[in-house]
């Protein structure tokens, strides 16, 4: 005990000025465990050092009085376009639609613009990390995009001078769009959608699925060839990028909205023996049990989308998260866009009104995303050893009227001002 105290004191002496501090007298919500009243969080060199109800004040570290305030881990938007798409209607401002059917070598991290106006706007509401998509996931239905493999989702902190400083992990998941049965296709050139007979649409799906499977087969042969003669094999960046997928280290992120698409994805995972995450699930129907049984995590888009089918209940998008949770599926919420990324906590909050237990809701915007992407050793909860990605609020962050008062990313205080607050202040002062 005394040795531990000594070590801590020694650490304090060398602690960085900016990324070490103690928050005390606050209500701490670690997410990984029950909330702690009148508790403290000690941050040393950007990492959480200690959390507890009776932490002693140590010398030479800034103390923040958290009386009346709450400390939560920073929230995580599991799949977003923040940083990679600025004005969604202007193609030049977005890097989410590469040419080509198979682009596993692409990583979104290097196209994240640290100066994007969306970054400060999003983080001001308590979001400290995001999974940046390499290709758009149009509402989860996956229609209209070109690529089958769109690239790798990178997990980024929403603070940093460069994308390099922002990066938590370059490859958190590989985006795969499985060909679906498209009986209706929108042609952007004529602005009309044309109908295809079901049998023909199904044939087209089979043809395209063969293409995807062939690509996986090629990658597998590349893997074998590399194992056999690593020195002589000509490097192919696309197949190289597929190796972690084939080794089961990197999960595939597959958009699957309806039951049929979900079953297609589950079948694909089984046949190819790969790890998958489903994204944009909307009408899982009878596939829920199967998802749960096979422990496939689900990243949910916003519940604030229209009802898809006429005979669905009016609140079907609100009850979806509760339905999945009840069945035992691990869920994380995602904006799947940039504009409404700041509303991530309300996606979870409104799901609580329609049956999702509160603790599960809070987890679905924090720890679950970290676990799904395999980075729970670094982010997602307030536990010692993790990055000090923290928010200090005046209340429950899933409630709209709550204000985020302070934010820390890797222990560094983060500015909560944005383009929005700047314009507000400027025009409020207009005589």
């Amino acid at each position, binding site marked *: 005990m005394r040795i531990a105290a000594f070590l801590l004191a020694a650490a304090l002496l060398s602690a960085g000025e900016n990324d070490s501090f103690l928050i005390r007298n606050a209500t701490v919500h670690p997410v990984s465990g029950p909330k702690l009243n009148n508790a403290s969080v000690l941050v040393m060199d950007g990492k959480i050092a200690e959390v507890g109800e009776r932490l002693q004040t140590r010398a030479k570290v800034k103390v923040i009085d958290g009386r009346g305030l709450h400390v939560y881990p920073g929230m995580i938007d599991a799949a977003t376009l923040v940083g990679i798409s*600025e*004005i*969604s*209607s*202007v193609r030049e401002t977005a890097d989410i639609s590469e040419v080509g059917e198979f682009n596993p070598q692409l990583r979104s991290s290097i196209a994240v613009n640290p100066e994007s*106006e*969306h970054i400060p*706007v999003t983080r001001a509401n308590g979001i400290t990390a995001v999974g940046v998509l390499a290709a758009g996931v149009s509402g989860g239905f996956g229609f209209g995009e070109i690529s089958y493999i769109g690239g790798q989702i990178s997990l980024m902190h929403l603070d940093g001078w460069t994308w390099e400083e922002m990066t938590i992990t370059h490859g958190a998941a590989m985006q795969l769009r499985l060909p679906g049965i498209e009986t209706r296709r929108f042609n952007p*050139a*004529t*602005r009309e959608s044309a109908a295809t007979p079901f049998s023909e649409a199904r044939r087209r799906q089979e043809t395209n699925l063969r293409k995807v499977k062939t690509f996986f087969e090629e990658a597998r042969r590349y893997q074998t060839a590399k194992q056999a003669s690593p020195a002589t094999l000509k490097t192919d960046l696309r197949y190289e990028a597929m190796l972690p997928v084939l080794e089961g280290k990197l999960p595939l992120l597959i958009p699957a909205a309806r039951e049929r698409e979900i079953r297609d994805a589950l079948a694909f995972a089984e046949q190819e023996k790969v790890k998958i995450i489903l994204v944009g699930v909307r009408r899982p129907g009878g596939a829920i049990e199967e998802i749960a049984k096979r422990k496939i995590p689900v990243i949910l888009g916003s519940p*604030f*989308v*229209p*009802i898809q089918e*006429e*005979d669905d*209940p*009016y*609140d079907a998008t609100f009850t979806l998260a509760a339905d999945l949770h009840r069945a035992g599926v691990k869920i994380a919420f995602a904006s799947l866009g*940039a*504009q*409404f990324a*700041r*509303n991530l906590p*309300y996606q979870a*909050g*409104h799901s*609580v*009104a*329609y049956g999702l237990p509160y603790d599960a809701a809070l987890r679905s915007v924090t720890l679950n995303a970290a676990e799904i992407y395999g980075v729970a050793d670094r982010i997602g909860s307030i536990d010692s050893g993790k990055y000090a990605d923290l928010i200090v609020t005046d209340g429950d962050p*899933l*409630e*709209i*009227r*709550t*204000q985020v008062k302070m934010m820390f990313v890797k222990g560094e205080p983060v500015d909560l001002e944005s*383009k*929005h*607050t700047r*314009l*507000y202040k400027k*025009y*409020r002062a*207009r005589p």
Partner: protein
Amino acid sequence: MRIRTAFILLCCAWALAAQQPRRTLGEALGKKQPLLIQNATIHTITKGAFTGSISVVDGKIADVGEKILAPAGAKIINASGKHVIPGMIDCHTHIAIDAINEGSVSVSSMTSVADVVNAEQRSIYYALAGGVTTGNVLHGSANAIGGLNTVLKMRWGKDAGGLVMAEAPPGIKFALGENPKRQGMAAQQGSQAARRYPGTRMGVEDVIRQAFIDARAYSFQWKSYEQSRAKGENVLPPRRDLKLEPLVEVLEGKRLVHAHSYRADEILMLLRLAEEFDFRIATLQHVLEGYKVAKEIAEHGAGASTFSDWWSYKVEAFDAIPHNAALLREKGVLVSINSDDASGAEIMRRLNTEAAKAVKYGGVSDNDALAMVTLNPAKQLGIDKYVGSIEPGKHADLVIYDGDPLSIYSRVEKVFIDGEQYFDRETDAMLRRELDAQKKGLLEKEKLDERQRTPARRPS
């Protein structure tokens, strides 16, 4: 094919089932049962919030207070622990219509969305379930001067005529900025659509000015005709112009202008243009940069109906800020928050929490935030004599929530329009179970039919 038939049957079953609870005995007899909602936290909007009761007689609010008398024969609803707010009013929506834009011409004031009301669109039920009882259903924003509006009450189950709120003054849609420009740029952007004037903000101003010059001349023709006739002269009436007639009503202050707008420059342009022709813009819709010209909007006397926190989806929305509603209000503008929903009525399911964002961004009070989706839009639409607050004499359009209406955790439980219950969450849940059972039954029957190789019976 058979599956399709089953589906159509299901949809019919649902529509029928959903209609059931609205047909009360009282209604069949042409009378409405009085109502007493007790022990609720009542958000009157005009006179604060308190715990008390509301009595309803003949579809109107009879009394509101901490202790009031129950009307004879009243149905009593114990709402203890619940909250009641006035039915919400959405000042900008496109639900319940089968067509939104007549975009082929720059001035389409001869068209009206009232002609394409679809009373069976499920969006009406979604809006109702979200606590919205009245909607300003507008023409789209494809042209500088769009079509005429209709104000609807979400009386789910009534026919198109039964949805119309007869008391509402007529209105018309205008649109500025990128949307009316788009058609003018269509050919440039490689679209098949024909190119038409205007393609710039300057052109938009020109189109509107020219239209009002024409309307003025047209009005003058009619006035001269009336004068000549009054003198007993034998004169031919002018040829009627259905495009200009609504614009004459605008000039005479009889028709409200609801103008879709984004940027401060175009907002200011329209205010000055209206002043040039001596009429007032009723509402600036969306008005995302309204906060930059709040002073001018307040001086002109236009209302502002905005989004809660939309931004960045197009260039003209890049300076949009979520503080817009609060800042406009602070500078003296009457503000409402709208959904702009299409047939999905997505936001109308939760307009209350959109209002809560005005508390978060800019710190308006809870009551003022609720007013932005109740009383303020009522004023903007000229219907505040009838709806928008909980006061004796007003229509009994009421929403019961299971908690604080601005909380993300609250749910709508019951909705009344004109004192009649149009939505009830428990009934909805019951109908769902019935529908599921019917669906299962139909599918099983279909399987059985297939096995027996007998053709499924088609509905007659």
